């Protein structure tokens, strides 16, 4: 059976994660929620500790704690706190508490690195099912709410005038974010999840004229990075999660240079018209 090959499982896991992260990542970029993603992802390590202590599936624990953190942040954000600072506090204290909590678990020997940076080569069939199930859920949710999400992102008042409740849409994103975090732990780990959300979307921005195009190009970028990173980590025996993020970061740099060059060219070309 083809799924017996760990490389095949790793490839499928990486593609599933990239597909789910890309459209959500666009909203994270548009709404400037990068720190929000960090806080949610870092909280998941606390969920990992909890799952291990209670012998629950890692996925379940991570999802629940990520969901609690994401909802807390979403509710606080409507109340006029200095969000930047607050999210910085939450993101890093969640990580610190999570790491301390894991250290108490003397009964189970765990490889902390695999939760911080992912362990995609160890993905088994159950994990694969969870990753693809979660990815399908997130993609379906975002596709269903797409117009309402987009309108609320452009302007909450514009959304309200059209009968859309921006807070409900915010909760949709919050839930999707928690699911992506939970499914991506195995693939890139809690520290690099935000990278898989933001960098493909930021790369896609250069080549997009519509929001839909940006989501699709981001998905393509994420998948290409996942495949490239997997291959490189195999060839050079490097940690896979970080390698994937390195590849997508290189894509981003290339896109940024391309955008800068295009700007120069169009300015030079457009000069006589002014």
């Amino acid at each position, binding site marked *: 059976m083809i799924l017996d090959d760990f490389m095949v499982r790793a490839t499928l896991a990486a593609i599933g994660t990239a597909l789910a992260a890309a459209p959500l990542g666009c909203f994270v970029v548009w709404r400037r929620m990068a720190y929000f993603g960090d806080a949610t992802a870092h909280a998941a390590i606390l969920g990992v500790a909890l799952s291990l202590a209670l012998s629950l599936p890692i996925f379940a624990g991570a999802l629940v704690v990520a969901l609690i953190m994401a909802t807390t942040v979403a509710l606080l954000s409507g109340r006029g706190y200095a969000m930047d600072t607050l999210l910085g506090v939450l993101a890093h204290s969640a990580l610190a508490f999570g790491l301390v909590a894991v250290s108490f678990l003397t009964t189970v020997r765990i490889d902390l690195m695999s939760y911080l940076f992912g362990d995609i080569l160890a993905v088994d069939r159950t994990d694969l099912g969870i990753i693809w199930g979660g990815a399908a859920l997130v993609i379906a949710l975002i596709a269903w709410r797409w117009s309402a999400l987009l309108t609320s992102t452009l302007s909450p*008042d*514009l959304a309200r005038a059209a009968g859309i409740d921006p807070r409900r849409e915010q909760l949709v994103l919050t839930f999707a974010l928690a699911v992506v975090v939970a499914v991506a732990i195995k693939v890139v780990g809690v520290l690099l999840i935000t990278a898989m959300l933001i960098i493909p979307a930021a790369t896609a921005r250069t080549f997009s*004229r519509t*929001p839909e195009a*940006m989501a699709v190009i981001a998905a393509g970028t994420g998948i290409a990075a996942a495949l490239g990173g997997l291959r490189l980590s195999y060839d050079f025996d490097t940690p896979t999660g970080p390698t994937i993020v390195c590849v997508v970061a290189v894509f981003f740099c290339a896109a940024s240079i391309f955008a800068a060059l295009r700007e120069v060219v169009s300015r030079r070309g457009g000069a006589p018209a002014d």
Partner: protein
Amino acid sequence: MTALIETAGLTVRYGGATVLDRVDLSIERGEIVTIVGPNGSGKSTLLRSLLGGVAPSRGTIRRAPGLRIGYVPQRLVLDPTLPITVMRFLGLPRKVPSEARVAALEAAGVPGIGERQMSALSGGQFQRVMLARAILEKPDLLILDEATAGLDQIGAAAFYQRIEGLRTETGCAILMVSHDLHVVMSASDRVICLNGHVCCEGTPEVVAEAPVYRALFGEGTKGTFALYRHKHDHEHDHVAGDACSHGPAKALSAADPHAGRQSEAAE
């Protein structure tokens, strides 16, 4: 006649400050109502509470069932990371046939810019696109929040003329906030002067004569107001039909600045 939207005793507090104090407001189909008031008088808060973005601390807001609202915000700032063409923007949140979107751009006076990025538009083009989008919603009530901020006087006059034409064509009601006192007031059926509470209310003539209005905006406005009014009438002759609401025949009950307020008492 039932109101499209109606507030009774609407009070909004932020922290300790009372931004809106027992505002009674009612808008009927086909009316053009303008809210004027100095900075910080609660104009935008009032609009946002009508849209549902600000919860009243006290009082009620009642909307007619199935009310469709078109909204043109004060200069919307789009995040530069969000690419969106004018055509795509016009189809949000509801899908609209592309011919209708093209026609709406034409009607708003900005034909042929459908493929441009929203971020690449000038201030005037942007506001016209916002208006086109609001019209595509086929609103019963069109709400404009300082929609002409950033337009020059000619641009603003053309904008308001378009809005008036819209009222004539579709019979929708229009509620707007503006700093362009003269232009806006000349185009309105009713003016509400707001300063936390409703200071005075009535036809433009009534409000312009009201002592509270003069205390807020000074005597100087009156002269320019008359000038604009004249200009406006002049321009209006070129437009077919709708001259009814602008003749000098309107009742001038300047003695009573609160004329027209009693109607809200009955529910």
